[in-house]
């Protein structure tokens, strides 16, 4: 193992990537560009939030739900867990059962499963129609 370590370190040093001066400047400008966009978005979000508070106040005043609290369903429990905790909890469950029971069979659920969890792509995608498969491919390619 030590011999491998030495060889791979030698290879690593030989192939070390280096930034050009142009790229250094590009990074600096890119960071500030993101900061500016962030500030603009913040101003916009504040304006939207202010409007939303007014709408919420009106909705509460009208009380269209009759005062009943929303139910806490099973999905809320899973949403509260970290990705790792979910994977550990469900490690022994067969894939096919896991997809249907946990992620569901609809395109949005499968897109979530494919994007955020390391699921078997073939099994997940076979549940979709050809049209839905195309849709998910386009969405992921964006």
């Amino acid at each position, binding site marked *: *193992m030590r011999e491998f370590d030495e060889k*791979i370190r030698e290879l690593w040093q030989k*192939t070390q990537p280096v930034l050009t001066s142009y790229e250094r400047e590009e*990074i600096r400008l890119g960071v500030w560009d993101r900061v500016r966009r962030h500030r603009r978005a913040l101003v916009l979000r504040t304006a939207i939030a202010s409007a939303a508070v007014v709408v919420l106040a009106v909705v509460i005043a009208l009380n269209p739900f009759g005062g009943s609290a929303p139910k806490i369903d099973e999905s809320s429990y899973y949403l509260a867990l970290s990705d790792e905790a979910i994977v550990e909890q469900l490690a022994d469950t067969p894939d096919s059962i896991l997809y249907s029971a946990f992620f569901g069979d609809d395109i949005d659920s499968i897109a979530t499963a494919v994007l955020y969890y390391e699921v078997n792509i073939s099994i997940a995608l076979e549940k979709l129609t050809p049209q839905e498969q195309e849709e998910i*491919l386009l969405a992921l390619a964006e």
Partner: protein
Amino acid sequence: MEDGKGKWSESVEQELVARAKNGDKGAFDRIVYQYQDVIFRLAYRMLDNRDDALDVVQETFYRFWRSLKSFRGDSSVRLYLETIATRLCISRYRKRRLLASIEDFFGLGTRPVWDEQIDSDRIKRALAEAMNELSPRERAVFVLRMEREYSTEQTAQILGISPGTVKSLLHRANDKMRRKLKRLLPEQFGEEKDEGV
């Protein structure tokens, strides 16, 4: 402090962070200038693509800027930046692998994962190809060990996983790399005396 450009010490770093917190753009620029190379190397090793790596470097510093107010200096700026960059890279690399799997499923073939500069060099290509065998977390652990020689505990802290998981990931990564490189570069890796240890 290593990898420094000019005079750079912990006290200088703390002062620059304090000034950046108060809106001093020049101070933040100096932090960017100080650490952009190490973050770029980390990102490039993780992603094998120059443009993606540059994007991750920008995003890392941008996120650091966003969290400046809450940055208390419990860890060094460098470790903090490396943590952000590593997690961004894992997420991107995971998404890229998923896209490649989906393309395979649809029979679209795989796009090259290394850029032309790497493609022109057989050794670089072999290294890139061997690293593509690794899962996102295996790759992150391997890159952090090669770039920084962090301890198991430090690597665990960066990735937000247990030290035991780090050891296991590193063992698997080394094993995969050794096998692949033995096949791709037999003249360099073909005759290891302690194979299987």
